[in-house]
């Protein structure tokens, strides 16, 4: 099992799990009298104190609207907001901050591309290619676009291990393909896709690629220039940041050519009833007052991640994944769904004779939080012939003790349903 990472050196000595856990106040609580074992990070991550303090401080002493005031409070807020944008640009290694558009979340980022790039570039008879393992947010916007334009949605299948079938992708790319949109890391299978290769294959035919980095971005370092992708979306609340904020990276050349997304204030340069001209990047795509506190909080979150370091995070999570995979494989009647060779931090499973919903309810009484359901990937459930799975997903603050807790809670499930 390996996790893609930019840095090769790993300073394990500096990763102090107790220190890390202390940074996340949520983890200190009990649930039904048992210590909380939070294993639903793929749904949302918990927030370090520094992010909580940043939000609090913003509203206590720094709040003002941005981009318009000549007074100091507004100028400071503007600088903090734009600094946050620079931080995200650096986090993804974008060429410049202007290539980072703040959005509400990754779903909005994808919809933005579908409605602007998509609407202007995709016509009748054209094709958009996605994969069988996509989250609904990377399926539905393309379905809507294809329906509107009379275009076709093509789907790259996955194999029984939950791996993308690259050969099939090649055969699906052609002169009518206008975009490939692919997930970097599957939220229900944990599969890490060979996105670099996907981009290479697509670019051979001049087809742009959007990568959904919602899960990948908090498990491994992402370099959009090294990947050479055309669009990359992330969501703040999975990056140990606030909800309601996300970012879309777009290659300047493409963003410049795209028509506006939402109309309103800030995205304009001048407005008359005869004609309106639009603002330059990235403001062209940021209409209205944004989630200022959210952006600044997200900046603090990526700073926090950078401080801990992906080398250390990935190493810790990789070890944890190995431990958890081995432990769960020993549970009688448990079948892992998603067994790709390249995988990170997510363990989806089904238990013989017990519906995932019942599994989730029972382990909750032991303080263990896992997700059960289709994880917004109904096609994946159909592919594996299951109505739903139970999913444990790991983050930097999880421990082997917590994995042991999950296994113990699963034994209780057996007891109840014997």
């Amino acid at each position, binding site marked *: 099992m390996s996790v893609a990472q930019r840095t090769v050196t790993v300073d394990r000595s500096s990763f102090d799990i107790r220190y890390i856990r202390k940074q996340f106040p949520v983890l200190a609580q009990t649930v*039904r009298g048992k210590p909380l074992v939070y294993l639903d990070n793929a749904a949302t991550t918990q927030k370090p104190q520094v992010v909580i303090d940043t939000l609090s401080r913003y509203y206590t002493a720094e709040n003002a609207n941005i981009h318009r005031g000549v007074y100091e409070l507004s100028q400071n807020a503007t600088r903090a907001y734009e600094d946050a944008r620079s931080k995200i640009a650096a986090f993804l290694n974008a060429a410049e901050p202007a290539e980072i558009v703040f959005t509400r979340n990754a779903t909005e980022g994808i919809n933005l591309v579908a409605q602007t790039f998509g609407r202007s570039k995709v016509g009748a008879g054209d094709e958009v290619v996605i994969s069988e393992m996509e989250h609904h947010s990377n399926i539905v916007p393309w379905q809507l676009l294809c329906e509107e334009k009379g275009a076709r949605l093509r789907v790259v299948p996955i194999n029984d291990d939950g791996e993308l079938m690259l050969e099939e992708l090649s055969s699906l790319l052609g002169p009518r393909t206008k975009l490939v949109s692919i997930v970097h890391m599957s939220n229900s299978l944990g599969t890490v896709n060979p996105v670099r290769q996907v981009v290479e294959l697509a670019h051979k035919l001049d087809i742009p690629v959007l990568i959904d980095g919602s899960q990948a971005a908090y498990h491994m370092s992402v370099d959009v220039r090294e990947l050479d992708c055309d669009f990359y979306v992330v969501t703040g609340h999975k990056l140990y940041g606030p909800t309601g904020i996300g970012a879309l990276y777009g290659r300047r050349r493409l963003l410049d050519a795209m028509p506006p997304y939402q109309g309103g204030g800030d995205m304009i340069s001048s407005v008359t009833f005869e004609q309106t001209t639009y603002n330059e990047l990235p403001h062209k795509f940021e209409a209205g007052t944004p989630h200022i506190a959210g952006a600044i909080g997200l900046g603090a979150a990526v700073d926090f991640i950078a401080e801990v370091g992906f080398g250390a995070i990935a190493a810790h999570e990789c070890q944890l994944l190995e431990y958890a995979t081995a432990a769960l494989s020993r549970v009688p009647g448990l079948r892992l769904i998603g067994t790709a060779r390249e995988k990170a931090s997510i363990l989806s499973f089904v238990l013989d004779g*017990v*519906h*995932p*919903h*019942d599994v989730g*309810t*029972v382990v909750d*009484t032991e303080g263990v939080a896992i997700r*059960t*359901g*289709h994880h917004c990937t*109904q096609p994946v*459930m159909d592919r594996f012939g299951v*109505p*739903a799975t139970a999913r444990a997903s790991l983050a930097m603050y999880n421990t082997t003790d917590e994995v042991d807790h999950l296994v113990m809670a699963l034994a*209780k499930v057996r007891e*109840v*349903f014997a």
Partner: protein
Amino acid sequence: MSDLRELYQEVILDHNRSPRNFGFLKDADCRADGHNPLCGDRLAIAAKIVDGVVADLRFEGSGCAISKASASLMTEAVKGKTVDEFHRLFERFRGLVTDENVSVNDAALGKLAVFAGVRDYPARVKCAILAWHTLRSAFDETQEIVSTE
């Protein structure tokens, strides 16, 4: 464990393992489908009505223990009753699983009282009432797939 035992009582586990009246009903007078996509519960219910009385009632489908047991116990409780009696029982059952103040000693509920434990698990109420809403839809002939999400 006592908390959990309130929810997963022996009767419920039994009906989950061996659901009663499970299977396809030929010559049904009315049918309806229920589906809760978020949790993956899927039910198909069919009834045969003779002179206003539910003469036969069957269900098929897959789902969590609560939804299956509820469907199974419902078919046992409703078979032989009139459609009007079903509607009254529906209200009583809904009250049982959602309202703390509803008594579990309501004689009309009989074995259905085992679902009182669902009150402490609000996320599971929709599982418990899916079969009921689906059957009501069959009687009302609404022709739409029922969901309790």
